[in-house]
């Protein structure tokens, strides 16, 4: 129905508008978007505290990651060993 030339111009114009709005996945983030999504130092401090591995309750346990070392410590301190086995380490990627 429309001349190919007009269809091409329409497509290019649409891409340009979408690009200006920063809506294409690979376009650089615009200055406005940076302003809208910027992280403040306060945001950083709050989220860093929430996400830090060492702030998690389970991380306050002095975990061993070597069976041999755990056995030596357990014998010396006269304690039993608590083993957690996982597909993917429970203290690592899982």
């Amino acid at each position, binding site marked *: 129905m429309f001349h190919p030339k007009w269809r091409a111009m329409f497509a290019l114009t649409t891409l340009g508008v979408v690009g200006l709005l*920063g*809506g*294409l*996945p*690979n*376009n*650089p*983030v*615009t200055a406005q978007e*940076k302003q809208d*999504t*910027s*992280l403040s*130092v306060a*945001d*950083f401090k709050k*989220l*860093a505290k*929430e*996400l*830090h*591995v*060492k702030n*998690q*309750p*389970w991380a*306050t*346990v*002095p*975990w*061993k*990651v*070597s*069976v*041999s070392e*755990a*056995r*030596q*410590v*357990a*014998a*010396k*301190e*006269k*304690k*039993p*060993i*608590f*083993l*957690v*086995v*996982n*597909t*993917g*380490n*429970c*203290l*690592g*990627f*899982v």
Partner: protein
Amino acid sequence: MYAREAVLNDPEIVKLVRQHFVAIAVDNTNNINLTPVEREWLSDKGGKACTQGMSVFTAGGKLLGVGGGFKAEGNLQMLQQALKKFRPEDEPTEVTALNEKDRDAVAQPPEGGLVLYVSWKVLGGYDTPAKPGTEAHAYQNGLGIDRLWVRKDEAEALVEGRFPDSLKKRMLRYHVSDVFQKVKDIDIAYHDGRVSGSFRSGSKGEAGSALGFVETKDGKVTRLDLLLKGRGERVKSHGFMAGLEIVPDGKSVPVALFFSLADPKDDLSRLPPHRTWRQLETYLR
């Protein structure tokens, strides 16, 4: 993640384990932190558990209890009963070391490099907040975790005021793209110890930000914290991606990803990153 959140984060279990046990976590399948001899030694002490298991035994090898699963209560009882059975007077004060053959099979961080803790979390956006104590609650509120290794030359570049491209690409390849999805690049600026950046993610190319801090002393990196915040979409990965596993299809939610320098003396820092398994050379390139 579920066992970590539901069981290992339980306050009573944390208290009991800290006071009365030597705790160890092993991966017996994906990134095995055991030598062959250690695997064999553990095989009748709960070491063959599939997916997830917990057990208690003495340094000498006497099994005291077996548990596992994703409920704190049952594992707490198992730990308490194992303690009652434990006879320290019957146990040796030293143990014969297991054969150290193939210790090299457990990957180690690069010499002179750095280890970063990696963690991520969905910050909200679920349609319905889950009830505490449920699996959904554990996923909604749980952290995903891993490690990242930094080469010696990359650490030196940071000291010299450069954020190395190879490090940025490793972060992107193994973590940023997983957590935020479809991220082609991160635009990073590093100046006077401050890292800032931006990126696009997801099917809609939504903008995200990065902010971080690097401190150095005597030619060494003493602090490296980098936080990224953006939008994430659902990731199906057999439960490995924490809260991202239960994001409703077609929706994006706010997500944060955090890298932080680990103390190499901390045993938790010694677990290898997930993607080092059988591809260490590729991982560090």
